[in-house]
């Protein structure tokens, strides 16, 4: 099972330029809203026509601008789950499901038993006579998924499937969806702006930014070793500084005014370093002297979050007037217990020494 996409579409405000290949399993497309994720799915489904390029599924050409091939959506056998689920509002649940069987199942008895089977599987029993407007968000999603499964698609395209649900329901449905995705034999494309969803549900991920996609990489790699700053931002990293080489495995972080040690290979022509908020540790001032990757910061604010403490810091060495505004501050996050414990031993509210492990410093282009 393999889906090949290489398309270009000029949309005036930006150019959609995606190229990726998805082989079996679940491939995530991660990007901020408006970056062209949904549009890519619509091009694959045949709802939108790209200006040029090629879309292919298991050797079947969906679209090829050179050979002037452009299959109708009806011919592509693609299951697209819309953000709003797109259930037919004037039809009952049963009729909605029946609509998916209409194109290929003419036998009424067989159709009915297929629907009954899928209703049981998707926990929809008893809802057959309801209209979509009378269903909860979770039920609507299950009907939409059941409808797609009935149409026997060769590839599954999920467009932000959880965006219309509240937090509590999201978790429950995510677990259900994970189970269903395992059973689905074809490839799945999962579009989301949420890195957590992508991390939990996908095997591989393709980051999209401003209409262009980066190569597909294993999900773990995106979160543990992003290469570009854009990828790091999407993976949730919040602290950046411009950086230049300063000897072997050392960089000078110019926005913070410190030299730091890192591990592993740095990409060529790197420009930034990034450190996740959770990987910044407070150090007692008496232990800080001479310790590597340790420097002193001014405390700007201490914010109490739901389960953690967020400390906004300004490196004392930061004097570069050209520093990007967002880079001047460092955001450190830790559990409330850890912070309380630290405050018991250290009584200097104005400043804070922080330490970063060299393996946690990401060198980025």
């Amino acid at each position, binding site marked *: 099972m393999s889906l090949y996409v290489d398309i270009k579409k000029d949309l005036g405000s930006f150019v959609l330029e995606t190229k990726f290949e998805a082989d079996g399993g679940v491939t995530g497309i991660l990007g901020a809203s408006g970056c062209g994720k949904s549009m890519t799915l619509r091009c694959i489904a*045949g709802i939108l026509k790209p200006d040029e390029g090629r879309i292919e599924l298991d050797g079947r050409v969906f679209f090829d601008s050179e050979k002037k091939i452009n299959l109708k959506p009806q011919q592509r056998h*693609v299951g*697209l789950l819309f953000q709003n689920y797109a259930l*037919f509002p004037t039809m009952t649940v049963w009729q909605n499901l029946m609509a998916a069987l209409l194109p290929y199942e003419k036998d009424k008895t067989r159709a009915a038993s297929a629907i009954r089977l899928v209703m049981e599987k998707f926990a929809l029993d008893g809802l057959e006579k309801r209209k979509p407007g009378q269903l909860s968000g979770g039920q609507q999603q299950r009907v939409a998924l059941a409808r797609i499964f009935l149409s026997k698609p060769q590839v599954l395209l999920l467009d932000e499937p959880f965006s219309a649900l509240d937090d509590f329901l999201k978790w429950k449905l995510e677990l259900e969806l994970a189970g269903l995705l395992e059973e689905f034999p074809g490839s799945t494309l999962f579009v989301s702006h949420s890195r957590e969803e992508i991390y939990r549900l996908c095997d591989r991920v393709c980051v999209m930014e401003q209409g262009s996609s980066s190569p597909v990489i294993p999900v773990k790699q995106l979160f543990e070793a992003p290469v570009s700053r854009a990828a790091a931002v999407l993976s949730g990293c919040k602290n950046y500084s411009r950086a230049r080489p300063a000897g072997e495995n050392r960089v000078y972080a110019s926005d913070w005014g410190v030299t730091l040690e890192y591990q592993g290979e740095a990409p060529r022509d790197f420009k930034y370093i990034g450190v996740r908020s959770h990987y910044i540790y407070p150090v007692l001032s008496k232990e800080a002297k001479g310790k590597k990757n340790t420097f002193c910061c001014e405390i700007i604010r201490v914010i109490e979050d739901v389960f953690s403490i967020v400390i906004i810091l300004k490196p004392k060495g930061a004097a570069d007037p050209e520093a990007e505004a967002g880079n001047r501050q460092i955001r450190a996050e830790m559990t409330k217990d850890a912070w309380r414990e630290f405050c018991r031993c250290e009584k200097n509210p104005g400043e804070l020494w922080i330490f970063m492990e060299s393996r946690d410093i990401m060198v980025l282009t």
Partner: protein
Amino acid sequence: MDWYPLYNSLRIALISSVIVFFTGIFAAYYIAKLHPVVKGILDVVLTLPLVLPPTVVGYFLLVVLGPRRPVGAWVLEVFHTRLVMTWYSGIFAAAVVAFPLMYRTARGAFESFDETLAYSGQTLGLSNTYIFWKIRMPACRQGIMAGAVLAFARALGEYGATSMIAGYTPGKTATISTTVYQLWRTDNDALAFRWVVVNVVISAIVLLIVNLLEKRERASGKSVVHLSGRN
């Protein structure tokens, strides 16, 4: 009391509403897909009968359908039928005048239709014909029904263009509106008043139906149909 005008008015209004129902819907559906410039021009042309005085519409109809004019002459020669001054001439007048109401209301209904429903139908392998009749039309049903009722009401009340193209011949081309005028002109106040009452009752019923449709539409959380037919 001779009920012929009521019968004639109703059949003219019904036939022209049926014509306008289909042409209005298809115009609304296909014009929405056109290039914005073409769409703008067609939109103006198709809505003009709504704002032009009916006598101007009658003038245009006579210019096209009159027995010495191209279309009228051709029909006369081939089918040996006159298109003006017959009972069915009123259909042309009523259809042209009522068309914009159907067209604009249907267009409003189609514009508020969630296009992703059609897309999801396509990806499920459903034909475009199925999507139009089973998904799009039912979803827009109330707006389209309201448009049809308004078009019927307008067709029933048509006077200006009808009097020019069909005239007033008792028992042949007389409609309620032309009869009221004729009776008034000939000082038959009492009978004119009876026809006025008939007309008011029919119009009130029609408006009642529109209101009921609007109420149901509002209850189902969709956009409200505008009486003017404008968006």
